[in-house]
């Protein structure tokens, strides 16, 4: 289904101003058309009702939860979007569409946002949606006693309050033109005021929970009172986990699941060549990089880092390792398909002369350079090997260390000189920059400490003028590109496998299977 149909289906129209805002701002927007490359075209046929949809995902955790503050895994997001709604919802361009809110508008400085909430929304148990519920659902993440994974997201929110029976006002510490996108993030699923027990979750979303077995699976039944008329299309969803990539592909091909996440390697070809199944691709700014810890030797040597950036054959990585499922990167976190992309920066390529120039200048000599890679960062071992081989041709002696995945993020990443890092897409580039490139940020694995960069990140979020914002984002990219702290060779598509009977998915660039939000989009062709 296209964005327009969704909007008509919801019976809403954005105010012109709000729409302009949505079009202009951050998002991880993808230039039109690109998002659909390689993906099955959304069918125009009328959706059909009924059926059981079985979905197998690639992560499994005994920490499975319906508590919006405890979300960290794919499965939490999928379960969350099936049961709860958010005020806004991300579309395939990475912009915020209205959901529970029928419109939203900022004040002139973007420090206050007003959300008009749709009338007559009820929970699956019949209770009406109250404004207090929305206030609670957002403000609970600010509670010091609650360990919330959304804490960094709400840091900029000063207050949320109800203004009348159908209006929510959000006041911000600093201007944020991207707030509608952030507020559509999974952690801001709307729950009843005061909810602390999430074992029997109740939301306004398209499905009700039938059975919830943490670490094993979840089954859902249709919410007959869902506020979007005619939706959801399927009667039941069963969500379960298959960790092994081969087993996952087999489950799809044998018909045990109609949708599976994260196909890899030969499984992609296998699914492509089958008649009844298709590959569902979502280009997005997910990446695996090799990053230098810039606060210690030898990785504080900028020339050494720059030498590495010229030592990887990006095209080869894309073609052979990723099977074409990605987009070449230019050593900063913004994708070339984004309107924010800095076209003035030359694309880095395998260039032994330039690599040698920087390597000699670094004075590193014949010592061994260790790079830590891990399964925790997908494809990092392949990236490491590609760099290692080219490095040997200029006399740079690289040793790859493969670390176990389960403790990698706590023990290794950013704590040794050169480590592999992986980031899933954030709904806006600004969120990612704040999380991963700001001085002192927890996930700033390169330990970049650059007040000028911090200021640019703030300005990018608060500048309403689009041309100026573009300029600031351009300068941010140049700073990171020149820092010698990161090799970011490719962005990694999300690659899922689906039965050709599954219709209605759209590639939303924040996650697998319509940005982890397929429950009221999908239908099964009978």
């Amino acid at each position: 289904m296209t964005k327009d149909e969704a909007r008509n289906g919801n019976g809403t129209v954005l105010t012109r101003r709000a729409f302009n805002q949505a079009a202009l701002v951050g998002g991880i927007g993808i230039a039109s058309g690109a998002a659909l490359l390689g993906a099955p075209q959304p069918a125009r046929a009328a959706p059909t009702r009924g059926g059981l949809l079985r979905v197998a995902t690639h992560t499994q955790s005994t920490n499975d939860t319906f508590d919006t503050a405890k979300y960290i895994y794919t499965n939490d997001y999928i379960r969350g979007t099936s049961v709860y709604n958010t005020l806004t919802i991300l579309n395939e361009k990475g912009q915020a569409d209205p959901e529970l809110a029928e419109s939203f508008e900022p004040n002139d400085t973007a420090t206050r946002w007003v959300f008009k909430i749709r009338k007559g929304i009820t929970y699956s148990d019949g209770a009406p949606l109250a404004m207090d519920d929305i206030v609670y659902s957002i403000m609970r993440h600010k509670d010091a006693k609650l360990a919330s994974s959304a804490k960094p997201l709400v840091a900029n929110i000063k207050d949320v309050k109800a203004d009348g029976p159908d209006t929510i006002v959000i006041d911000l510490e600093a201007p944020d033109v991207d707030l509608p996108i952030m507020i559509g993030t999974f952690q801001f699923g709307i729950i009843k005021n005061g909810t602390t027990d999430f074992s029997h979750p109740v939301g306004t979303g398209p499905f009700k929970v039938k059975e919830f077995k943490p670490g094993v699976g979840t089954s859902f039944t249709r919410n007959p009172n869902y506020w979007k008329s005619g939706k959801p299309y399927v009667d039941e969803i069963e969500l379960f986990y298959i960790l092994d990539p081969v087993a996952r592909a087999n489950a799809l091909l044998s018909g045990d699941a109609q949708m599976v996440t994260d196909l890899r390697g030969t499984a992609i070809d296998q699914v492509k060549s089958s008649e009844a199944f298709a590959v569902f691709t979502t280009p997005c700014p997910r990446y695996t990089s090799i990053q230098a810890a810039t606060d210690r030797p030898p990785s504080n040597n900028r020339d050494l880092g720059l030498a590495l950036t010229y030592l990887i054959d990006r095209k080869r990585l894309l073609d052979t390792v990723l099977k074409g499922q990605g987009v070449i990167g230019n050593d900063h976190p913004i994708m070339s398909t984004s309107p924010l992309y800095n076209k003035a920066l030359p694309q880095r390529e395998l260039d032994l002369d330039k690599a040698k120039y920087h390597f000699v200048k670094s004075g590193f000599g014949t010592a061994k350079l260790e790079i830590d890679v891990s399964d925790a960062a997908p494809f990092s071992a392949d990236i490491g090997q590609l760099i290692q081989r080219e490095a040997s041709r200029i006399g740079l002696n690289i040793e790859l260390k493969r670390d176990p995945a389960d403790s990698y993020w706590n023990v290794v990443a950013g704590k040794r000189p050169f480590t592999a890092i992986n980031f899933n897409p954030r709904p806006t580039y600004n969120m990612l920059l704040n999380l991963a490139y700001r001085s002192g940020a927890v996930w700033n694995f390169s330990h970049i400490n650059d007040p000028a960069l911090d200021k640019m990140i703030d300005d990018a979020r608060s500048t309403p003028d689009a041309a100026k914002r573009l300029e600031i984002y351009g300068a941010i990219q140049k700073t990171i590109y020149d820092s010698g702290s990161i090799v970011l060779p490719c962005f990694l598509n999300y690659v899922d496998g689906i039965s050709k009977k599954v219709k209605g998915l759209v590639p939303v660039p924040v996650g697998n299977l319509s940005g982890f939000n397929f429950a009221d989009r999908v239908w099964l062709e009978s």
Partner: protein
Amino acid sequence: MHPSLRFALRRFAVGALILLAVSLLVFVGCEILPGDVAQVALGQFATPESIRALHQQFGLDRPAPLRYLEWLIGILHGDWGMSMGTKVPVAQLLGERLANTAMLAGATTIVAIPLALALGLLMALRAGSRFDRAASVVVLALSATPEFLIGTLAVMLFSVHLNWLPAVAQVTFGGGWAALARSLLLPVITLSIVVAAQIARMTRATIVNLLDLPFIEMATLKGVPRRRIILVHALINAVGPIANVVALNIAYLVSGIVVVETIFAFPGVARLMVDAVQARDLPVVQACAMLFCFAYVVLILAADLLAVLFNPRLRRGIHPDGSAG
């Protein structure tokens, strides 16, 4: 006191001591595991404040020896604590997985063990024959083939190509007995092949070894038929070693089949433990580890008791090497 009873009581006491020692090892192991439950639970959004909040909530800010004692006393009362990740009692989390594992291990045991013993005996009966040599090669090859290969090949053939059986053992959401049996078939076949091959080899080897002993020679000289020698005289003496192999294999079915559980996406306890380790959900890890050790101790104990009952020398309290016990 009867020597066998004394033997049994002594073994019970030793088993309890082993479990106590293991509990300490498990706890210490979990303590020194790098990584931290709060960090893992909060993922990429972790901040020092939220980590501290979670630590307090889990009581991880208190000294380790105190936590060990509380945990131990809890276990003795049948209280395994609360899962840190899901906030449900560990016993509840474990219960369903354990039922699944028991079902898979039970079905495999029922299929594999009679099959293995029969095959082993047949091979021993015809030791040196063409059948024996052919069977030995096949059994050796199968016991050396990793189960992920057997499992994956079986799925490729029966699920993807022939479309007869489901590729994953989805036992979670209803479906009735027929569906359950269908989904269990492939994992049971896979495990049975691996387990049966090993037990058959051991059975054959044990009995063939016994056949060289003087008392068998004596029986042969007295004109006892070969079939009777093996089934009556040799088999009784082979019960000890065979029971041990069988016990080890059943214990393996309970605790060590994480690869098969992964291939078939089967929700058993082995997978639960791996997931819990990754989530650093230590109460669950500790409970799984204790459970696995308990299974080993009980099964080996049962095998030893069986060996004593069937071995007159052990029954009289004398060790197999001839010394008085």
